């Protein structure tokens, strides 16, 4: 058993990710969270569902993670005035998730921050889109959003408001800086601008359509989401995809990591006025994207993973292309790494900038790539290695300095490791004609989880089916939920012009967070 708690009965969930589930009562929530936290575990996701049609009311769901795997706890709530005790005192990352769960479903928490989070003015306060009886027309409002930001007072303090529309080619969000001179005293984020109702949309979709939508929760992580979604469906159905499909999924996931790390390394050069780096790395990234298009019919590998398997194969002739690509990228990226490391003006901007101490990272639950740059030794490909990662022996990339420089180093290390993995996958890929065991319908009243280590961090998808086996509730969770609040800390005491650099060194998703 992954955790022991009086009266708690956990049952294992079928699937690629090691996971258990169990029902708990109101009084168990905080003690269980406390004991998982105290033993080094983390909160992955928190969401709610409206089960008034089939049961007594609403249900709160939490996924916790410790070294044994995922623990999904279901806490039934009343149909009238549903509420549960705050867990953000234990897991600070829960704060925004609890506020979002209230905005979408009306389930209340007693945390200190009771402000709205995902809701601006698209629907009225007191109406809840994820309730099954939600009326979109009735709940429309024309009022403007009026969000109470925290004010910083003092001599010489002023505010800089940035966004939602940013100066560059990036997603929308609002940043409120309180500064003295150039120094940032406080940053407060405000998101939800790209909230387009993804979770509600899932509920009207077939399994196949849902796979496409999952691949568009955050476009830059389309492979990770599509795999996590497929993993959740296979968890409910109790099936395992064909071997070759699993190896191809890993190939796609590593290619997504390679492309994104290359792009970020270019941007991280550009943000310190080293446009040479941007040009060079984006030449490399473009070559990866073109190979994707030539071999797998899509530059970003969208819709290549579907429930039950994959939809494209790697031709025998493609193997040589991938091996040549590996050799080229290794050669070029090593050269560029030397240039980055020897260029004093780059290192001067990187070192010590946007520092997140390992202790703070652990307290706030910083995860994924940014977490590993602050000593958080978690990588789902290592700790919860599902096939084929159990045969790939992934080397985790960890750094302890917690600054922009560390996040750059982790990206370089992971890039080279992904290239090594790509080589290994290509050499171990066994011929087979079977790429998919089609999954069109799921069993009724099922629940499944998928967890995939995307390039940014752990991507989780949870699926609940109704009595007929249709999608009743789908909750995709992006690692950006955990990491955005940490950015507010990373910028403190840095100068305003370093914000773009620090922000890019995390490179978090807005769409994946706003849903």
């Amino acid at each position: 058993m992954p955790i022991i708690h009086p009266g708690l009965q956990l049952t294992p969930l079928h699937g690629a990710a090691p996971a258990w589930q169990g029902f708990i009562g109101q009084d168990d929530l905080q003690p269980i969270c406390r004991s998982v936290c105290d033993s080094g575990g983390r909160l992955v996701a928190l969401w709610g569902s409206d089960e008034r049609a089939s049961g007594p009311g609403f249900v709160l769901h939490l996924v916790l993670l410790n070294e044994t795997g995922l623990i999904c706890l279901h806490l039934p709530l009343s149909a009238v005035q549903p509420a549960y005790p705050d867990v953000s005192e234990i897991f600070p990352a829960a704060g925004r998730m609890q506020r979002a769960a209230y905005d979408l479903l009306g389930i209340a928490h007693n945390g200190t921050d009771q402000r709205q989070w995902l809701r601006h003015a698209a629907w009225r306060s007191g109406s809840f889109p994820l309730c099954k009886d939600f009326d979109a027309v009735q709940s429309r409002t024309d009022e403007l959003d009026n969000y109470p930001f925290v004010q910083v007072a003092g001599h010489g303090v002023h505010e800089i408001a940035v966004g939602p529309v940013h100066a560059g080619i990036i997603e929308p969000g609002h940043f409120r800086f309180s500064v003295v001179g150039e120094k940032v005293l406080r940053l407060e984020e405000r998101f939800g601008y790209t909230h387009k109702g993804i979770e509600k949309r899932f509920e009207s979709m077939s399994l196949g359509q849902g796979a496409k939508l999952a691949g568009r929760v955050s476009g830059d992580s389309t492979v990770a989401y599509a795999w996590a979604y497929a993993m959740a469906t296979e968890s409910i159905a109790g099936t395992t995809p064909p071997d070759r499909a699993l190896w191809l999924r890993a190939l796609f996931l590593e290619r997504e990591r390679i492309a994104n790390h290359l792009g970020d390394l270019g941007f991280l050069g550009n943000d310190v006025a080293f446009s040479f780096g941007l040009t060079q790395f984006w030449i490399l990234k473009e070559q990866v994207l073109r190979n994707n298009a030539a071999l797998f019919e899509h530059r970003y590998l969208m819709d290549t993973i579907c429930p039950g398997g994959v939809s494209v194969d790697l031709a025998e002739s493609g193997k040589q292309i991938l091996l040549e690509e590996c050799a080229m990228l290794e050669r070029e990226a090593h050269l560029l790494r030397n240039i980055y490391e020897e260029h004093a003006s780059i290192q001067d901007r990187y070192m010590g900038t946007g520092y997140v101490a390992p202790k703070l990272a652990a307290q706030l639950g910083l995860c994924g790539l940014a977490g590993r740059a602050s000593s958080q030794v978690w990588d789902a490909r290592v700790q919860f290695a599902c096939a084929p990662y159990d045969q790939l022996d992934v080397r985790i990339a960890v750094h302890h300095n917690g600054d922009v420089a560390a996040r750059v180093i982790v990206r370089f290390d992971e890039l080279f490791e992904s290239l090594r993995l790509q080589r290994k996958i290509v050499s171990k890929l066994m011929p087979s004609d079977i790429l998919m065991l089609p999954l069109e319908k799921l069993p009724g009243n099922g629940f499944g989880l998928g967890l995939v280590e995307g390039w940014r961090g752990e991507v989780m998808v949870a699926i609940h089916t109704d009595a007929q086996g249709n999608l009743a509730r789908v909750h995709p969770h992006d690692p950006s939920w955990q990491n955005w609040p940490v950015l507010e800390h990373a910028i403190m005491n840095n100068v305003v012009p370093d914000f773009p650099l620090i922000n890019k060194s995390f490179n978090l998703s807005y769409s994946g967070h706003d849903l």
Partner: protein
Amino acid sequence: MYQILKQIIKTGIKTEPAPQANEAMRIQPQLLQQKILDTFGHALNIRLVDAGSCNGCEMEINAVNNAYYNLEGLGIKFVASPRHADMLMVTGPVSRHMEVALRRTFDAMPDPRLVVAIGDCAYDGGIFGEGYASCGKVSNIIPVDVVVKGCPPTPVAMMQGILAAMSHFIKE
């Protein structure tokens, strides 16, 4: 420094020929820069607004600026303020939370102005459709001159869309 120079020389020029201009444009690609200058008096300036996309289109818009496509080489660049922009590029279904920001950005642009909607979602709402939080296609909110379909559209398709919008404009 030696390493950098060596790498620059070794890299050479990656920029490929600009895509063939759409027939509707009726101008030669090599005359493009001059036409832009004659019409706008400066480079064509584009302001991007992500009105709720999944960020897939943003990746390809960034790619348009890489050495292979080299959009800036044609005299077309992205700017930070709508006040400086001749063209508004919009991605995504327009989320209700971005509706006001999109309208305000459009209103802040000087006339004459062009709007290019990028991607399947901007075209018809795409997979996200219309709902309690999504207004669907861009033309539900502001007038659109050119639509570039695709999920996401390739960099070449985007450049063709930009050129098509401009040619229509230059003809007037």
